């Protein structure tokens, strides 16, 4: 049984060309892909669009059908309390366990804030965070 706390993120390669991001956003719109969380990582040369979407498998196939470079990546969604120190709690647990956060980005939901993180040991991080009493987003909650 797959771990219900592993969230599938779509990573999309965006080359450094005017209008390229718009073209990709257009594809998301065309296929009515509902974006729940989004991050654009960029270097001077290219960008990587990371998105949490509903029905990621279907979205992946649709985006790919348009010749766009897209990849599925496992991330974890951490539920953040609306209180100071909640970023520290999560980061501290992972840091002490020697798990490296490769990148992360926040998403403000209606009731809660989510922090999506990509770590070098997804399963390990889920276990440790849960043990520390930190609530994680379930796949079904996306």
């Amino acid at each position, binding site marked *: 049984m797959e771990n219900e706390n592993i969230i599938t993120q779509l990573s999309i390669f965006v*080359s450094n060309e005017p209008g390229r991001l718009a073209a990709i956003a257009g594809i998301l719109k065309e296929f009515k892909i509902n974006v729940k969380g989004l991050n654009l990582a960029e*270097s001077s040369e*290219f960008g*990587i669009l990371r998105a949490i979407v509903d029905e990621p498998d279907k979205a992946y196939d649709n985006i790919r059908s348009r010749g766009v*470079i897209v*990849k599925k990546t496992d991330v974890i969604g951490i539920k953040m309390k609306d209180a100071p120190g909640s970023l520290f709690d999560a980061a501290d647990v992972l840091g002490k366990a020697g798990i490296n956060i*490769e990148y992360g980005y926040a998403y403000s939901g209606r009731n809660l804030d989510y922090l999506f993180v*990509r770590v070098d040991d997804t399963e390990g991080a889920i276990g440790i965070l849960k043990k520390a009493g930190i609530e994680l987003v379930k796949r079904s909650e996306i």
Partner: protein
Amino acid sequence: MYWNADVECMPVEKMKELQYRSFKNLINNLYSTNKFYHDRMRSAGVLPDDIRSLDDVRKLPFMYKQDLRDNYPTKMFSVPNSEIVRFHASSGTSGKPTVVGYTENDLEYWTEALARSLTSIGVGKGDVLQVSYGYGLFTGGLGLHYGAEKVGAAVVPTGTGNTERQLELMQDLGVTVIACTPSYLIHMNDVAAKMGIDIKRDTCLKKAVLGAEPWTESMRTKIETTMGIRAYDIYGTSELAGPMFTECEERDGIHVGSDIMHVEILDPETEEVLENGEKGELVVTLLKKEAFPMVRFKIKDITSVVEDTCACGRTSPRISRITGRSDDMLIVRGINVFPSQIEYTLMKIPEIGNQYMIEVTREGALDHMKIMAELKPEMFRDKVTDMMRLKTRIEVELKKHLEIAAVVELKAPGELPRFEGKAKRVIDKRVM
């Protein structure tokens, strides 16, 4: 008139059978004795047994000019140096020349090819042939020299330069045929005019064998009318031994001796084999080459091949005038850069697909080169650092091969332009 009628007029099916057997032998030998091509076949996952028909040749991996550079001087050779009877070398690109070697048999089929070619344009005993191609490391001079002697013509080995003396000898020795570059012949005609010599009136010159540089039909017309001669196109490069094949009297394409050289025309982009008469990238295999492998060599010339029987009776395929090279040399910051070097480097990087573009710009007095390359979708990594590492790795590889820095820009598949026929992968934005 034929030099070797049995071969030159052999029925096509019979010739294909002969080519297949030559291929089979060649590949078996290379696989068991030549480390370079053995390794290349292994990494392409092709074994000698996979070649069961002439069409199976398409399974064989390509060779590139860069292979000769990388294996300088003789690392690619199949035979011990003691079997080599001649070396030629081409001038270096980015400092490194390429060396070609010849066994006794290699010189023999080279000379045979030229004997057939010269006979096909009616040159033989009784002719006086002035070789005004460079002698020495360049293959033009010695190649024509041996071919002309073979057919019984008298050779005047003037080489290049000292044009006035050349014209004097041309008159005094009754030269009937000249072999040189078209631009040199035009230069000779200009010098002759200044000396008061009219080539049409004052010499016995009747024919010219011209090549080693691109020329056009309008140049042919100009040469023929001003000098009162017939001019024939010749084809060959040092990798193929040297100049080898010419047009016949019909002048409807250059006859390629199929027993010596196998030709394919590929779509430069998809590498699919193109139909009879379609224009694309020439890929050649020297079926009798002994000194080193020359198998599916991407010579980077753009042409087409016609396979029907020529009006002269020869059944050998004819290649049309070379309309360009898909490998036009660039000079960037004073260094010669061949797009094929870039292609070769990119080809070895598994993350990169088939498409690339080269852009050269000038800022102030400094040239900048940018290589845009399409990423293979399955090789995409979603961490910026991983992608930057890939970019840097390609840049380091390019620097190593080109000896000049280039910036790499990664592109998504389909973003770079596709080409029909001649691919134009170089954008030179410099204003010279």
